[in-house]
C-alpha cells in the first residue's frame, strides 16, 4: 500500500501532531467542546478514508483545515443544530480558560472568526485562507478588515 502521508508520517503521528490544530479551529467555529470533539473525530476518519496523496506537510495541514471547516459547516447547517438549544460547556465540564480576547472573537460572526483564527493563530496569508475556505481573496481581506473593526470597538486598544 502506498503511504499517502508525507515521508516518515503515519496516521497516528499525523493525529498527534495535528489534533490540536483541528480541534482549535473546530472549537473556534462551533464554540463547544462536544461538537468540537465530534468534528475532530470526523475529520480524522475522513483522513483515513480519503483517496488523496499529500505532497508535503503543508498540503496535509491545509487539507485538514479545509475538511474541518466543511465538517463544522455541515454541523452548523443541520436542522438538528438549528432547532436545538446550544450545549453549554460550563454545565457539564469546566470550559477552557481564556481571556477576554478569545471571548470577543467568539462573539464575531462565524465567517469573521474563521478568518481571524486562520490568520492570527495559524498565520496564513489572505490568499492561503482564500484557498482553504474556498472563497475569494478579496472577500477574505474584507472579512479580516471588518473583524478587526469590530474587535477594535470591543477590545479597546488591544488591536
Amino acid at each position, binding site marked *: 500500500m502506498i503511504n499517502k502521508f508525507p515521508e516518515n508520517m503515519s*496516521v*497516528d503521528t499525523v*493525529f*498527534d501532531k495535528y*489534533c*490540536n490544530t483541528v*480541534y*482549535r479551529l473546530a*472549537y*473556534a467555529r462551533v464554540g463547544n*467542546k462536544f*461538537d*468540537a*470533539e*465530534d468534528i*475532530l*473525530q*470526523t475529520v*480524522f*476518519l*475522513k*483522513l*483515513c*478514508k480519503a483517496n488523496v496523496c499529500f505532497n508535503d506537510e503543508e498540503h496535509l495541514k491545509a487539507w485538514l483545515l479545509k475538511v474541518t471547516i466543511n465538517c463544522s459547516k*455541515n*454541523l452548523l447547517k*443541520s*436542522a*438538528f*443544530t438549528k*432547532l*436545538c438549544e446550544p450545549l453549554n460547556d460550563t454545565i457539564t*465540564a469546566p470550559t*477552557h*480558560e*481564556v*481571556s477576554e*480576547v*478569545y471571548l470577543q*472573537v467568539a462573539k464575531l460572526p462565524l465567517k469573521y472568526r474563521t478568518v*481571524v*483564527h486562520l490568520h*492570527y*493563530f495559524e498565520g496564513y496569508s489572505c490568499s492561503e485562507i482564500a484557498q482553504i475556505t474556498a472563497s475569494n481573496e478579496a472577500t477574505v481581506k474584507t472579512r479580516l478588515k471588518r473583524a478587526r473593526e469590530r*474587535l477594535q470597538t470591543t*477590545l479597546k*486598544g*488591544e*488591536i
Partner: protein
Amino acid sequence: MFEEKYRTDNQSIVPDEQAKRYIKAKIIQNSQPKRINFNAIIAIALSLVLALGVTLIAKKPVPINQYVGESTLMENLTYDTIYNSINKYMQKQSYDSFIDIMDDGFAYLIGGLARDEAATGTAEPSAGQDNGTVNLKGESSTTNNQVQGVDEADLVKNDGRYIYSIKDGFLVVTDSNNGNPKLVTKKSLTTGGETVTGLYVNGNRLAVIIESYRFSGSYAPNVKIAVLDITDKENIKVIKEINQNGYYNSSRMIGDTVYLLSNHYVRDNIDRDKAETYVPCVDNAAIRETDICVIEDFESPSYLVVSSVDMEKGEIIDNTAILGGAQNVYCNNENLFYTFTKNEKSEAGGKVEYKNETTIVKLSLKNGIIKTEATGKVMGMPLNQFSMDEYQNNLRIVTTVDITTHSKSSSFVSSADSTTKNALYVLDKDLKQIGQIEDLAKGERVYSVRFSGEVGYFVTFKQVDPLFTVDLKDPADPKILSELKIPGFSEYLHPYGEGRLFGFGKSATEQGAVTGLKISMFDVSNPADVSELHLSSVPADWSEASETHKAIMVDAKKNIIAFIATDDVAKTRLFVYGYSEGNGFFKKAEAKLTNDSFYYGARLLWINDYFYVVTKDSIVTFSLDTFEKLNTIEF
C-alpha cells in the same frame, strides 16, 4: 497585543486527554483495512448520524436481506478450548486499542448503559400487582417489577414496616412507624471507590449489591453481593460476601435465591496456564470449565457471569459464564433471557449495508441451578427488558432495526443512508423463529413495549405516536390489530385495570418537537379499536420515571399514579394522580418535598395507610387517603 493573547488563549484549547485517546484508538482501527472493526465504524457512523440529527427527514426504505443466521452454542468445554477461542479472536482484532478505551471508562459507560437499560424497563404484565407481597407486619407496595414474583434490585426496599435505603454508602434503616418515621440505624457498607447499586429484602435477610471500579495497578472492576442478617435491626451483621470480577449488569430475586449478573471483559494479556486471565472469577476462583459456554461467533471477548446465591445461608449455589457479551436482561420465574446486539455487514451490487442483529440466550433457573438452554437470533435491537416476554413457552421480542447503506466507493456514511424499521418476532422454546411481523413504522423507533398475555402493545415515535396493538394468540401468525396515532409518545406502559392501559411519556407537537410530560389512558378493551380515552399534561419537563420504571408507582387497586418531576425552572414536585372513568385523570397531590433540589434515585412506596417518599437524605410521609403531608425526617 491581540495576536499574542489570541495565540496564548488558543494554546489552552486542546481536546481532553480521554477524548483524544478514544478518537486516536478509533482512527488507528480504521486505518488498518484488514483489521477493521466494523462494529466500531457503524457505532461512529451512527453516533454521527445522531449528532447531525437529520433523522427528521424521511428516508427511502432500503430493501434488506431478511436472512438471519443461527448462532451456535458450544458446551462441555475445557479451559484449553476456551483459551483457543479467545486467542483466535484476539489475533483477528487489534484488541489493545479496544481495551485501552475500556480502561478510560468506556467500559463503565457500556456497563452503565446496559445496566440503565436493564433498569429502564420493568413493571408487571398485569394490572395492580405492585401491592403483591402481604407482609405479616402490614400491607405495603413493592418495587415496580416487570414480572410478578421476580424481584428487581432497587435503592429503596421495605418489608411492610422497616424502610431500607442508601445514603452515600451507608445503609439507612427507618421504622415507618405509621407515618411518623424514626431512624433505627445507619451502617456503613462500603469502603473507598465503592457504590451501592441495589438492595433486596427477604424476611430477615438483606442483600446489598456493591460495585467498585478500583484502580490497583491494573483496572479491576468488581461487583459484590453482601448478605446481611437484619433480625436485630440495631445490630445488623454481614454474613457473607460474594464477589464477581466484572461490571454489574443486572440482578433478580426469585423466592430465596438472588441471581447476580455481571459482564466480564477479557484483557489482552491472556496466559494459557492461568485460567483466571481468560475466564471470569467468582470469589477469586476461576469458574469451572464445565460451567462455561461459548457462543461460536462472539463479537467481543466478554462474558456474562451469572451466580445464584442462597439468601438464607449467603452461599453460592451455582455459577455460569457465557462468552459473548450481554446487554438487556429479561427474567421470569423459570427462565432468564438476555440479548446482545451486533452489526452485520453485507455487500451486494456495489452497496455496503450494515444492519443490527440481536442474539438471544435462554438460561433456565431452577432452584438456583443455572443451565444454558438455547440461543436464537433476530433482526434489530430490543429497547429494554420490556421488549421481551415469555408466554406459553414462546418468547416474544420487539426490536428496532437500524439499516445503513452506502456505496462501496465512498465509505463515509451520511444520515441519509440510514433508516430504521421495527419488528416483532415470536420464538419457540428452542429460540427458533416461528412467527414475525416486520417492516413496521419505517423511520421510527420503539419507545416502549408491554405484553399482556395474548396481546402486545408497543409505541414507536418520530413525529406522532402510533400505539400498535398486536394479537399473539397464534404465535406463528401475529397480527397487528390496531394502530392509534396521537402526538407525543409513551415511554412506559402499564396495564391499569380491566381494559385499560396507562402510558407515561412526553407530549409533542404535530411536527415532533417535545413539549413536556404527559400521562395517557388508553382503552384497550377492544384490541381492534384502541383509543386514547384521556390524557393530561403534567406541568413539568423531566422525570426519572422516563428512565426507569422503578421511579413510578402505578397502582390500579389503590388508584394511584405517582412520580416525581422537575420543571424547567428546576422546581421539583411530587405528583399524584388518580383516574376515574368519567372525568379522566385528577390530581390527588402536587407537593413540594424537603426542598426544590433534584431527587435522583427517589422512590415512592406505601405501607398500610401511609405514603412515603424516600430519598437518600430524607423520608417525607403523606396520608395515603388525602395525600396531606404529615412528617419529614432527614438523615
